[in-house]
């Protein structure tokens, strides 16, 4: 029963439109591969580590394979178009090296030449590749079971919303005690913010890192260290503490893979954020995104989408419907990639100008709309940032109202707002005060939902219906473009940012698949979904 009086036909239309807008993108993603998808495949097969200059072996190997195939004149579509799996395992089957790492070393020394195998050679290479990549997926499956076991043993977070706290020192060895302390103070989810700029690196740094800017690099070793530390905390506290990182930027598929291999529990993963806010090529993003979401689906990881970002650049009232549109698209792409409702932490944020009359009622309307549209998704509720100022007292009040909306709309994941948002990286006391704020509101009004029924013709319900209507209109406009969503992104339909499909970062790492393209990871993952 809709509390907001949403018309069932309108809700159905929203999903139909999202599917219409999204389907050509999925097709496009299926027809292309990227350097990062290929490198993720090598990572699943167990290749890790880096050379003396810090360039990962997966980059070295993929680059040489691509260059070798590029130069064999009879191949069409460039060196990436057939995928790296066939040439790589062909070389292994031929006995060029005993394992992937040695092969990568030899390749970068120039002592191996790769070719595209044919006939029986191709079959052998294919079988060997599939066997080895399946090993990586088995590790991911084991980790998923291990998470379930640990949740059973230690217990889950005691209530919803889960309390989500951020650590970001730049040094993994500083992050660990901070994260453990945050867990003791009540965090159910720890997010380690990445170093500024990592999203634009076309490789994943290697090893434990101690130098980052406004965050810590996402690396396999950092993931492992932090997960191990939080396993200790989970044991100490008698509840499983979840770990979050970011599958975004140019290496989205690889980072998703590493998250699966190291049992991370949630990942930021948005379908359009990289395009709009990082100027990453749209096709690159959609291909990478689909692969990374297939991995997340397999790993039992909950994704968090990035709709809050729209509201930090556009007006939160005028652009409210763009959040809904993006949530619908994110939902479509996620489900297509095999994610289930419980894995969809669809984002939204409390960013309306507090000086605007009725701002709280508007926030409530938008949050309730998201709740009603996605009843089985653990929504991710993001605190005010844009209208936080140096007035920490006012900010504390604003965070209280943010928490109240969270309580009233049954949010699944609540990113705790800091009153010092605009001032400093959170101090110990800021975090403590912020958690007191959350606890007070949840204690005082956690069950207010039971009594709170907005009048069907009132301000809140009317506003929610209006936003859904505007979102459906926007989806219609997107579909009306000759090339649908891609053209809409190109002409600036989403905010002021115009992102044409033939521009943006990472474009040279995209290739259209040739008829003989083979990727064992994609094959195995498609079979799951």
């Amino acid at each position: 029963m809709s509390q907001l009086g949403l018309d069932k036909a309108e809700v159905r239309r929203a999903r139909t439109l999202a599917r219409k807008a999204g389907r050509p993108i999925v097709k496009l993603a299926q027809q292309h591969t990227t350097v990062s998808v290929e490198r993720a495949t090598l990572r699943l097969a167990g290749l890790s580590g880096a050379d003396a200059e810090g360039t990962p072996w997966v980059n070295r190997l993929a680059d040489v394979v691509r260059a070798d195939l590029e130069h064999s004149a009879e191949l069409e579509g460039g060196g990436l178009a057939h995928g790296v799996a066939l040439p790589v395992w062909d070389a292994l089957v031929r006995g060029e090296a005993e394992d992937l790492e040695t092969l990568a070393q030899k390749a970068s020394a120039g002592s191996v030449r790769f070719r595209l195998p044919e006939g029986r050679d191709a079959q052998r290479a294919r079988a060997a590749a599939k066997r080895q990549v399946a090993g990586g997926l088995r590790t991911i499956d084991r980790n998923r079971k291990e998470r379930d076991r640990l949740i059973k043993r230690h217990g889950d977070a005691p209530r919803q919303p889960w309390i989500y706290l951020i650590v970001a020192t730049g040094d993994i060895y500083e992050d660990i005690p901070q994260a453990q302390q945050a867990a003791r103070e009540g965090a159910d989810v720890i997010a380690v913010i990445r170093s500024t700029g990592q999203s634009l690196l076309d490789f994943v740094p290697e090893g434990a890192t101690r130098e980052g800017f406004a965050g810590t690099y996402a690396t396999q070793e950092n993931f492992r260290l932090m997960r191990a530390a939080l396993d200790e905390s989970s044991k100490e506290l008698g509840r499983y503490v979840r770990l979050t990182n970011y599958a975004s930027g140019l290496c989205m598929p690889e980072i998703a893979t590493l998250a699966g291999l190291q049992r991370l529990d949630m990942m930021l993963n948005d379908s359009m954020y990289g395009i709009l806010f990082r100027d990453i090529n749209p096709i690159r993003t959609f291909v990478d995104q689909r692969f990374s979401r297939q991995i997340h689906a397999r790993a039992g990881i909950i994704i968090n989408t990035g709709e809050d970002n729209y509201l930090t650049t556009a007006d939160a009232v005028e652009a409210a419907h763009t959040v809904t549109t993006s949530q619908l698209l994110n939902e479509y792409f996620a489900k297509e990639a095999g994610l289930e409702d419980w894995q969809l932490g669809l984002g939204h944020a409390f960013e309306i100008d507090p000086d605007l009359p009725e701002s709280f009622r508007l926030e409530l309307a938008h949050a309730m709309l998201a709740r009603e549209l996605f009843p089985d998704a653990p929504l991710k509720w993001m605190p005010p940032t844009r209208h936080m100022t140096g007035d920490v007292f006012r900010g504390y009040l604003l965070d209280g109202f943010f928490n109240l909306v969270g309580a009233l709309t049954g949010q699944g994941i609540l990113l705790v707002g800091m009153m010092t948002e605009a001032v400093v990286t959170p101090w110990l006391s800021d975090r403590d005060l912020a958690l007191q704020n959350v606890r007070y509101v949840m204690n005082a009004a956690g069950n207010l939902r039971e009594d709170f029924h907005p009048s069907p013709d009132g301000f809140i319900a009317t506003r929610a219906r209006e936003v859904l209507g505007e979102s459906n209109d926007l989806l219609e406009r997107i579909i009306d473009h000759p090339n649908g969503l891609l053209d809409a992104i190109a002409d600036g339909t989403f905010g002021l940012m115009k992102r044409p499909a033939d521009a943006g970062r990472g474009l040279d790492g995209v290739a259209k698949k040739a008829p003989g393209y083979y990727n064992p990871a994609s094959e195995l993952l498609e079979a799951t979904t």
Partner: protein
Amino acid sequence: MSIVRPYGDTTGDGMVQLSFTLPLSSSGQHSKHAEGAALQLANKMGMDPALVVHSKPMGPDFTFFVVYGRVNHLVDTDQVEVVERDFPLLTPKEVNSAVKRSLRRRLVVVGACIGTDAHTVGIDAILNIKGFAGEKGLEYYRELKVVNLGAQVSVPQLVARAHEEKADAVLVSQVVTQRDAHLLNTREMSAAFREAYPPARRPLLVVGGPRFDETMAVELGVDRVFTRGTTPGEVASFIVHRILDGKAA
């Protein structure tokens, strides 16, 4: 000379509030000791009498305090040093007509966040048509051509684009301050422009961000530093003042 003191509820009472954390336990028998420590700090900071009105343990090793008290310091308003605005504040209309009159072409502004800084809030607040604090951004000014390069632009890229666009002014925003990145990046940027341009041709260099000190312009090698709360109108007025006055002279 004019002397003032903080105002609580009576002129001259000198009352202030303060909150801080000490790495001390305040559980059980430690609670008096921790409060005493807080009081000692307040006294040393010039609060006398000081009253610890709230102390709360945060975990086993830390305590948070709120202290109210009277400070014995006096503020001499004649000795306050600030960078006063030394240019007239113009409306967008006045900016447009000034540019039209003196330049007879559009004035070109190139903006970017340099280094690894991905926080475009500052540069967007000044440049985007949406603007900030009720003022429209520079894109709204008809006679200004705005090229917003966005985030994570390298210094060589910025210099190249400034050349290409024949920039009159270059705006750089820096939010991230870890390891003084904002200062290092700004110095690198100003040095690169000095190297790439003869002094008379160099575009006006303006840097902004919440953690800058306005008095550091010379030290950073830029023409102006803007800090928190700066509005697009102030930036536009400054640019017009400096560039067009230069032309007149």
